[in-house]
């Protein structure tokens, strides 16, 4: 009986640890800034309900996270909801949110997905931006 209980406990533990069953994707944060948290509060009542008293403006961290195929823009729920800026981080989808594994700890932090774009499209946009940024330097060099 005791052995069975231990076995069940062990199986439950494995099932609740996403890292163990390999459901994490890998990505890298390439941009970060503190933006407004409005993406968190845009419910039906906020948009269409009666006007409410002005709230104190809080800024939330917004990250651009690139994975192999998709680039995500994710927003934290509060100003101090930070994720470590390691070269590679682990994340997974969970109920329309992105759960990011913090450091090597077991805990996850959930972020709202503000935007998504296919990686190839994002790369193309980045090349275009880089070319525009370098254009003045190229013109200067040609003179």
């Amino acid at each position: 009986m005791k052995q069975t209980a231990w076995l069940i406990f062990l199986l439950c533990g494995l099932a609740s640890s996403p890292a163990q069953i390999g459901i994490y994707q890998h990505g890298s944060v390439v941009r970060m800034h503190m933006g407004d948290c409005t993406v968190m509060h845009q419910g039906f009542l906020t948009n269409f309900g009666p006007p409410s008293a002005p709230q104190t403006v809080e800024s939330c961290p917004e990250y651009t996270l690139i994975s192999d195929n998709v680039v995500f823009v994710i927003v934290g729920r509060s100003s101090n909801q930070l994720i470590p800026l390691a070269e590679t981080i682990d994340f997974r989808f969970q109920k329309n949110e992105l759960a990011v594994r913090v450091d090597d700890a077991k805990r996850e932090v959930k972020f709202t997905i503000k935007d998504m774009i296919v990686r190839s499209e994002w790369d193309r946009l980045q090349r275009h931006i880089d070319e525009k940024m370098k254009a003045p330097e190229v013109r200067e060099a040609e003179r």
Partner: protein
Amino acid sequence: MVSVARIMSLSPTILLLRNLKARLLLCGLFFACLSSSGAAQESSNGTFYSNASEVRIVFFATDKKNRPLQNLTKDDFAVVDNEEVIRDFRSLTRSTEMKLDVIVLFDASDSVLPRFQQEIADLLQLLLPWPWNPDDEVSVLSFSGTQTYPLCAGDCAGSLTADRIMAAPRGGSTPLFDALDTAASLLQSRPRPDVWPVIILFSDGDDTISIDSYSQAVEKILTSQTHVYAVDLNRFGPSRGRRTLQELADTSGGRYVETGDDATRISTAILEDLHSARVVTYALRPSNSDFHAVRILPSHDLNLQFRSMHGYYAPPSNTSTEDHP
């Protein structure tokens, strides 16, 4: 000493001209003092290569108990420069490899006169351990009325006495922002790649007459990449001056020290801080604006805290600080 009423009656143009004249005179005096003391040195340390294509950030790292970190590697943090996350650093070194160029700004206006003797004692106590390195420079300026006065330049640690401070003009209004502008301009006028500019400010933070605004003073501080250590001379609770000092220290990546601490603790806190700093360099990223907002964040351990200036102004692409002696 010009009375406050007399100054207030002057037109802004006359005040501006007077102030410019005074700053030019002050710069001249300062350079004369430095050249006579032979303090200007050629850069001999090749570690800190800084030019128009490289960024150099001085920062402090502490653990969750706010203790300086002894071991820090490039993998422990990332720099967010104008929103871009940077991890590929050219170098990471300790500040002890840098020479310090320190200007102590000393408030001698009416509002701090009741604490003047204590202020002098704190200042002299602060100068006692200098220099750490033979090439460190410590200069002292006082400010009051509408002017900033040089008390000594380059070698103040050995030459400044209480009598000399007492002989300087005092009383009148508080031209704090003008004095900060002057000090930052002086530090910026002699940039060297391996020198760290620092302002240690003794004041109540309550500017009453400056031509420069707070924003202008901060811009000059960030342009010169100077860290401000603010020693608060306010005796009472929260005030506008205290907030100013805290913001100055925070924005520049320096530190705010309360006057309630005794002189030894003030100097120890500042000197330990300067001693534990690190310097990271990386390639300048292209940007549409000259100003780059900067933040340093942990890569793995979210308990680590990093303090640095909140931004810098990118140098013009056709100049190089390498060329400056």
